[in-house]
């Protein structure tokens, strides 16, 4: 069965520091991968997505992610974190053999300290 694992429940980084959020997936074929961000009381906003091609994808707000098939990973990175980046981050994979419903990880809560 397909699954997504986000090993870190909570991460705290200092403003201006670099960030990496981990995501591992279990999937039998080429996955469609997504990162969403959710601020308190808000819906999910798409940061970036990977379908095929270049394994390093750029997203909004200065985020990027790299697809590594050998490690079944799709880690999210940002070189310099801003206080406004504090939020919940979800990695998701497009479900195989379905109409495209997403399977989400449990999320990583990011705190940013001044």
């Amino acid at each position: 069965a397909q699954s997504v694992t986000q090993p870190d429940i909570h991460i705290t980084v200092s403003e201006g520091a670099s960030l990496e959020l981990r995501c591992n997936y279990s999937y039998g074929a080429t996955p469609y991968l997504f990162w969403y961000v959710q601020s308190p009381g808000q819906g999910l906003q798409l940061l970036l997505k990977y379908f095929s091609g270049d394994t390093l994808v750029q997203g909004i707000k200065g985020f990027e992610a790299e697809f590594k098939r050998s490690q079944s990973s799709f880690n999210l990175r940002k070189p310099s974190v801003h206080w406004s980046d504090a939020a919940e981050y979800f990695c998701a994979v497009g479900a195989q053999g379905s109409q495209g419903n997403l399977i989400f990880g449990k999320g990583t809560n990011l705190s940013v300290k001044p």
Partner: protein
Amino acid sequence: GAGVSQTPSNKVTEKGKYVELRCDPISGHTALYWYRQSLGQGPEFLIYFQGTGAADDSGLPNDRFFAVRPEGSVSTLKIQRTERGDSAVYLCASSLLGTSGRKTQYFGPGTRLLVL
């Protein structure tokens, strides 16, 4: 343009009552999804509509849950005989028609349901 909207934003009900949650997708999006997000968890798929029909309802937890989309636009998620375990945020998403899995889904702000 307008995004996905959901009403109400919050709903408090008593155990055993019936509730309806509404989703208004982005204009022109033929695909519509419902997800449920429990506290501390990621969203979990409930049901998918392509047009007016439910193409995949495999995520509905039991027969107390039902959803409709009679005109292929607005959708209503209906929960009968609510239980405290139904308390969660119910998210709606819509997307354009596209190759399975490749469709980018745009999410609404959700309806926070609390069953007392």
